């Protein structure tokens, strides 16, 4: 981004006075793009007749109006305060296209009825699921989060020491490596029949599955990270008076941290999969269960609503993990930004 800014600055500096004005006008117009697209889609939404059945279109009108107000206000602030402009300027084209596509989708569904129902419900219908089914959806999110947090935490807390011990002690590696190599690659979801039969509750069974799904990548990447630490670090530390505990916890572990975070990200991905599948097959709550249940009734608009929530939820969790990593690995150069 900074390169673009620099290029922009160079253009501005090189251009004449009238060109500067032109650039400023274009930048201001770009800031108003999302609001303009939203205003157009609101007009379309209210103005064109519906050709599909929806309970009420008023809620969706309100939603569009609120978002329109937010973007208009933001653009207004940016107009008065040029410091705010670059951020909105970067964000605005993407937002405008996204709102445009949403309006287009509404046009071909609700307004023109070109796509088959119930598989392609209009955004108005999907929004209906949010307003009508809010309590069930909220409870589902909480159930899914509880399962994810418990399973992921247990998997990580078991995977870290397993990986460190495998990387550090040859004997431990000798005995545990075959187990990791045989059990690890089996998709955790394949254990669902066993887990549901062996564990007393479907919750404990699902926690086990997600813990298993997390444990494997965390173990392998931690092991690999610890085993590949530059031996000179240990030699230096030993000449400085470090004992084995210090070497493991204060040298091997931080040195392996970049690899450990790769394992944590991989574990996060596999636990999302395991979570949803486990909820679809066994657990009687959560987003996976909600999707399965809505599909059973042919209410695909609810499926889409749950998918949208999953997207936001899982993306937020990944963002959180990235934030933690950026804090923990601040010493590394050239981190990939999320």
């Amino acid at each position, binding site marked *: 981004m900074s390169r673009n800014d620099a290029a922009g600055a160079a253009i501005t500096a090189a251009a004449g006075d009238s060109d500067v004005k032109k650039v400023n006008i274009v930048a201001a117009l770009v800031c108003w793009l999302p609001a303009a697209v939203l205003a157009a889609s609101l007009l379309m939404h209210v103005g064109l007749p519906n050709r599909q059945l929806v309970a009420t279109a008023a809620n969706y009108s309100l939603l569009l109006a609120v978002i329109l107000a937010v973007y208009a206000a933001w653009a207004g602030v940016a107009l008065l305060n040029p410091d705010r402009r670059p951020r909105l300027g970067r964000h605005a084209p993407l937002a405008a296209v996204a709102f445009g596509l949403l309006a287009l989708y509404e046009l071909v569904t609700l307004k023109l009825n070109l796509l088959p129902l119930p598989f392609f419900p209009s955004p108005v219908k999907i929004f209906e699921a949010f307003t009508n089914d809010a309590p069930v959806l909220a409870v589902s999110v909480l159930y899914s989060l509880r399962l994810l947090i418990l399973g992921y935490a247990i998997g990580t807390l078991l995977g870290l020491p397993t990986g460190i011990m495998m990387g550090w002690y040859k004997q431990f590696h000798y005995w545990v490596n075959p187990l990791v190599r045989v059990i690890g690659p089996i998709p955790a979801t394949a254990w669902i029949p066993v887990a549901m039969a062996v564990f007393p509750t479907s919750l404990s069974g699902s926690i086990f599955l997600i813990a298993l799904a997390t444990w494997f990548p965390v173990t392998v990447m931690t092991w690999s990270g610890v085993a590949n630490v530059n031996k000179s670090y240990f030699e*230096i530390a*030993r000449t*400085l*008076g*470090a*004992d084995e505990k210090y070497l493991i916890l204060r040298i091997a572990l931080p*040195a392996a941290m970049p690899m450990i975070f790769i394992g944590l990200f991989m574990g996060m991905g596999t636990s999302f999969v395991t979570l949803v599948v486990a909820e679809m097959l066994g657990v009687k709550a959560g987003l996976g269960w909600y999707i399965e249940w809505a599909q059973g009734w042919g209410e695909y608009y609810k499926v889409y609503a749950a998918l949208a929530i999953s997207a936001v939820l899982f993306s937020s969790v990944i963002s959180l993990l990235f934030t933690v990593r950026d804090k923990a690995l601040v*010493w590394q*150069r050239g981190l990939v930004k999320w």
Partner: protein
Amino acid sequence: MVTAATAGKLTLRQVGKIYADYQGGAINALEPVDLDVAPGEFVAIIGPSGCGKSTLLRLIAGLEKPSAGTLQVDGAPIAGPDYTRGLVFQDPMLFPWKNIWHNVATGLEARGLLAGQKDEVDQFLALVGLADFAGVFPHQLSGGMAQRAALARALVNHPKILLLDEPLGALDALTRMTMQDEILSIWAQRRTTMLFVTHDIDEALYLSQRIVIMSERPGRIKDIMAIDIPRPRRRNAPDFFAYRSRLLALLGVGEQA
């Protein structure tokens, strides 16, 4: 604060090292050597690559076990690595996840003394001129600064012996000369016994009281030369020429003119 060194006497008797190679054969890295280093002495070790000078240093550090012979510091045998024998490599090998302050503090932290001796860390940072860089991470430092930090990290334990394995080998000529003077001033202040491996003849001459000349395959001590040039030494002093000629001849690269 110049104090006469009382500790840091090094005694090597018939110390040899044979490595096993990957085919099960044996590589004779170091023929049995005898070496005595007085407390507070500055000894340079010089020789072609593969002459066993790094092996010798690693044996003294306790990172390798000798195949034969005995190594003693102040009369006690060397059993393994110890904070009284500090080590600095050619690569500074700063811990990249620690900032400079915490890198220098490592020795005290590892020995559980950091809480009471935080001032020490600050002092050694100041000693090597890095007081303003305490919070910086290693990848933000230049090569010379990183090597200074590595020196401070080794010094914070007040080692009796400092083992330096081509510590200035990767630095540019000017930084190198500055660092040589800094090492001399640290030595003058602390009277730590210095074992300085290098392949730079001028560096060895400028710094040391004695130069150990080693020859290659298998590594052995060819000669030991005392350098009686008064200090402070000047880099262009005429005294150096005679020593340099003798050293070059010993190393088998004498001028053919």
